[in-house]
Every structure is written in structure tokens, then in C-alpha cells.
């Protein structure tokens, strides 16, 4: 079963297609114009989009172009379905980024079977990829990157994605996602069962509208000790349950984070382009080496958190003696996104910083 978004200003055609696809076992949502459909698609993240050409406010071609400019829809099949049935119309649709073009002369059952051929097969990467982001120095934007990375993974791969905020208290992932958690990671870790199951974890998760599930940090101060021996089995369970687990790891390589590092498939070491952060990164790299972490797992990401006075990338690479995987440019909208509880990737997906995060996902799990 797939989720299909159908966009057409003709209510009769919308009803006919909705009926046809629902009868074939798919879930369907409809929209009568392209502008509204863009917002709807961002929220629903459909597996496939069927779009008319001749619509008020925005033509199907313009919808295609705008959708393709968002990382979320780069791979989503978009089928133009139009009464304009000339070969030149097909070419115009393909030039605009459509996956295929079907004329409205086609019978509904033929349309359904053609669409089903285009639905993405299970192209998801191997289950249980875990990526942890951390920095030895605070204030480098680790949580912002973790939140946006989780959303990018969800949007691009369309598979189950969890973001776990491993800060024992006062983590900001929930705030940045604009959600109010009713439970937290420490509460989950305090359960008595030796092993974790999805049924145990589920009540402690918060659903975000992007589809990412959040395991939040404790939102209030507590002196309770973080049971570090429980973190390892929890992450094992997350790995076996979710396609992607993104961990926002506290910035110290001390317990309880250190056992977690060994379980990660990818480590993103976040640094800002200034000397203190570079120095901390050198120390973090030494620490990771001492923990026996495979250096191929480690990826450096420079997050430019201030607009000016940044050290050049070449200087950073020379000092840390490693290549930088990605540089996320300064983005003033990042602060607004944090303030509004709507992550940059959803609020301003066309910004260079959002594009860099999208590219990071491609580079990490290509």
C-alpha cells in the first residue's frame, strides 16, 4: 500500500481517481491546487504524486519544478496527468522534473496499473543504521543538525526514523521540533525490564508531523543518575526496530555516552570554524581513537554558527589532519526555526544550509 497525493482542480476527476486508488488498496489524499498541495505534500510526504497541468494559481509544471527544488521530493515519483496530450506536453512535463506523463484519455484501471509500476520498490537502505552527532565543545549546533538530519533521513528515505536526545536533562530536540513530550529517555531507562522492546519504547515516543519519532530528554531538572548500563541495550533495540536512529549525543566523551559510541555506524563530529572548537575536535578525535572507534566511521561536519570571522576550511583540515565531509553555511533562519519550533528543513528547505544537510544525508548513506 502506498500513500498517493492527487492534485487536480476538477472535483469529478479527483473523486474518480480517489475511488480508483482506494479500491486498489492505496491511501489517497487530494488537493485542488498546486500551492496548497506543496504544503500538504510536505506534511504527508506521499510515496507518489499525481498532478494535473491546467490548474489555477499554479500549473502542474510549476508544481513539479517547485517540488523538485525541495530535498524531500527529489526522488518522489511525480506523474503529470493532463488533458493536454501532445508529445510536446510530455516533453515539457519531463523537463519540469516529472517522472512520467499520462494523458487523461487513459482509463482509470489502466492509470492505476501504470502508477503502481512507478511506485518506489523497497529501496530503503539496510535496516538499523545509527548515526550519532556530538561535539566536545558546546554551542556548535549539534542539536540543530541532529534534528534536521533526522528529518532529512525521513524525507529522503521514507523509512522509520527515530531521534533520541541523549542529554540526561534539558536537551533541546523537543523544543526545536515544536513538540511537547509526555515522557522522556531517563523515564524509559528507569524501567526494570532487562531488555527493551518496541512495545516498551512506544509510549515514551513523541510523533512529529514529519514522521520522525522523538525520544526526548528530561525537560526538568533532576539529580537522578542516568543509568548508563541501560543505554546500550536501548540503542540495540532502536537499531533493530528503526531504519534510522539519530542520536544527539552529549558533548563529553565521558560516561554515559562512551559505550554508545561503539554502537554507532556513523559518527558526526560537529565543529564550528573557530580555534577553540578545532582544539576540542582534535581532543575528541584522540578520545575516539582511544575508545577503539574505526576512523572510517568518523565524519567531520563544520557548522558555521556565526556569519563572520570563520577560519577557512583548509586551515581546519590542516589542523585536525582529516578532511571535512560537509560544511553547513551560516543560516540566520536557523535561529528563527529554533524559535518557532519548525526545523529549517521544513521551514526553509531552499536555503543553502538545508541543501547542505540534504547533501549530508546523501553522502552518509549513498
Amino acid at each position, binding site marked *: 500500500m502506498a500513500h498517493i497525493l492527487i492534485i487536480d482542480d476538477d472535483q469529478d476527476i479527483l473523486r474518480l481517481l480517489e475511488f480508483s486508488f482506494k479500491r486498489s488498496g492505496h491511501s489517497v489524499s487530494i488537493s485542488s491546487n498546486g500551492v496548497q498541495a506543496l504544503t500538504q505534500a510536505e506534511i504527508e510526504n506521499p510515496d507518489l504524486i499525481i498532478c494535473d497541468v491546467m490548474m489555477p494559481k499554479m500549473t502542474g509544471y510549476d508544481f513539479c519544478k517547485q517540488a523538485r527544488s525541495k530535498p524531500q521530493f527529489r526522488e518522489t515519483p511525480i506523474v503529470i496527468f493532463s488533458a493536454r496530450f*501532445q508529445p510536446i506536453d510530455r516533453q515539457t512535463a519531463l523537463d519540469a522534473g516529472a517522472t512520467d506523463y499520462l494523458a487523461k484519455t487513459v482509463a482509470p484501471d489502466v492509470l492505476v496499473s501504470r502508477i503502481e509500476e512507478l511506485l518506489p520498490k523497497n529501496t530503503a537502505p539496510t535496516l538499523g543504521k545509527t548515526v550519532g552527532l556530538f561535539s566536545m565543545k558546546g554551542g556548535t549546533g549539534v542539536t540543530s543538525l541532529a534534528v534536521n538530519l533526522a528529518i532529512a533521513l525521513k524525507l529522503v528515505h521514507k523509512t522509520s526514523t527515530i531521534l533520541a536526545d541523549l542529554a540526561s536533562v534539558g536537551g533541546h530536540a523537543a523544543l526545536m521540533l515544536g513538540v511537547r513530550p509526555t515522557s522522556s529517555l531517563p523515564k524509559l531507562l528507569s524501567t526494570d525490564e532487562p531488555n527493551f522492546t518496541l512495545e516498551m519504547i512506544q509510549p515514551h515516543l513523541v510523533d512529529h508531523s514529519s514522521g520522525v519519532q522523538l525520544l526526548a530528554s528530561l525537560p526538568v531538572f533532576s539529580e537522578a543518575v542516568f543509568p548508563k548500563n541501560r543505554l546500550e541495550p536501548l540503542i540495540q533495540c532502536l537499531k533493530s526496530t528503526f531504519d534510522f536512529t539519530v542520536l544527539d549525543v552529549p558533548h563529553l566523551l565521558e560516561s554515559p555516552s562512551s559505550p554508545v559510541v561503539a554502537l554507532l555506524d556513523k559518527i558526526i563530529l560537529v565543529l564550528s570554524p573557530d580555534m577553540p572548537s578545532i582544539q576540542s575536535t582534535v581532543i575528541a578525535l584522540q578520545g575516539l581513537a582511544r575508545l577503539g572507534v574505526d576512523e572510517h566511521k568518523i565524519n567531520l561536519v563544520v557548522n558555521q554558527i556565526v556569519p563572520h570571522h570563520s577560519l577557512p576550511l583548509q586551515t581546519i583540515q590542516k589542523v585536525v589532519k582529516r578532511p571535512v565531509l560537509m560544511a553547513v553555511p551560516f543560516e540566520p533562519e536557523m535561529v528563527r526555526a529554533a524559535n518557532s519550533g519548525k526545523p529549517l528543513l521544513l521551514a526553509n528547505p531552499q536555503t543553502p544550509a538545508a541543501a547542505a544537510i540534504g547533501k549530508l544525508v546523501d553522502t552518509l548513506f549513498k
Partner: protein
Amino acid sequence: MNTVRRTSSGRVTADFFTSSYRFSASIIVYKRRLVDVLADRMTDYLDIVDIYISRINAPGDIIATYQKGSLVKNEIIFILLSDESEGISKERFYTTRDDIPLFISVPSFEILGQLKWGTKELDIKKLLLADTQNFLPVSEVTATNSLMPTVKFQGPMALVNKTKVQVLCGLNP
């Protein structure tokens, strides 16, 4: 219902061609066929809705859209339909006829297609003058722009404005 093109609202979408423009638009025909709406002598205009305008030299690009408009029937050179039945009057639909190949020259276009014709010898004058309908139904159509031959339009049926015909050539059945 065979296709999703014509829905219960009685709305038909077609491409209307003048010598310089392609208008993709809908027309409310209710239970009639488009050819019968065109033959309505009560009005010289054709009310169209949801109009998407393209220039002939770039017929895939939509340069403007409007919600409603009127086409002067006599200024239409031909109409391209996605469904053959829309081009044949209900009164004639069940008549047995043979297809004969046609070449028609109209301003800016040359049209190749098939004409539904009976068993008698083709009488071109009669075809162009005597019929009550101003638009000639031609099936399996390819319309080529005579100045830009790479610009071609194809469809199962076209309605060609008889008053715009410069030359019509055909073969006997």
C-alpha cells in the same frame, strides 16, 4: 465511463488552434457533443473556461491562464480532441462509413487525416458547402505547422473549420 477525460459535469477539454495560438480549454457541453455545440447557430461565440494559452512556436509552454473567455467560432482553425466521439454528431454516430485519406491546407497548418465517408464518390464541394455543420470531423489527425514543420499536433479527432480550408484533397473510397 471509459476514460477520465469527460466527467459527469459534462465538461470537455480540447485544444483550440488559431494561426498563432494554442488554447487548451474546457467547454461545458452538458449532454451534447462538442461538434453539436459548434453547430449551434444561435451564437457565433464559444464560451470556454480554464483557458491555458501557448504560442504556436512553443506549444508546450503556458504563457497565460484565464478562468473564462469566448472564442469567435469562425476564427478557430481547428480543434483537436482527445476522444473521437466528441467530434461526431449524435445523429450520425451509428452510420457505417469508410475512412478516406485527406490533405487539408488551412492558414499556418497542413492537416493529414481520415474522413468518414459513405460508399459514394467523394464530392469535395458538397462536403465543404452542403453540410449543415461548419466544422469537418477528421480522424487520426496530424496537424503540422507549415512555417515550423517541427511543430506538430496529433490526436484521434480534429474538427476543421470549413471556412478556413484553402485546399482539401482526398481519394475516392
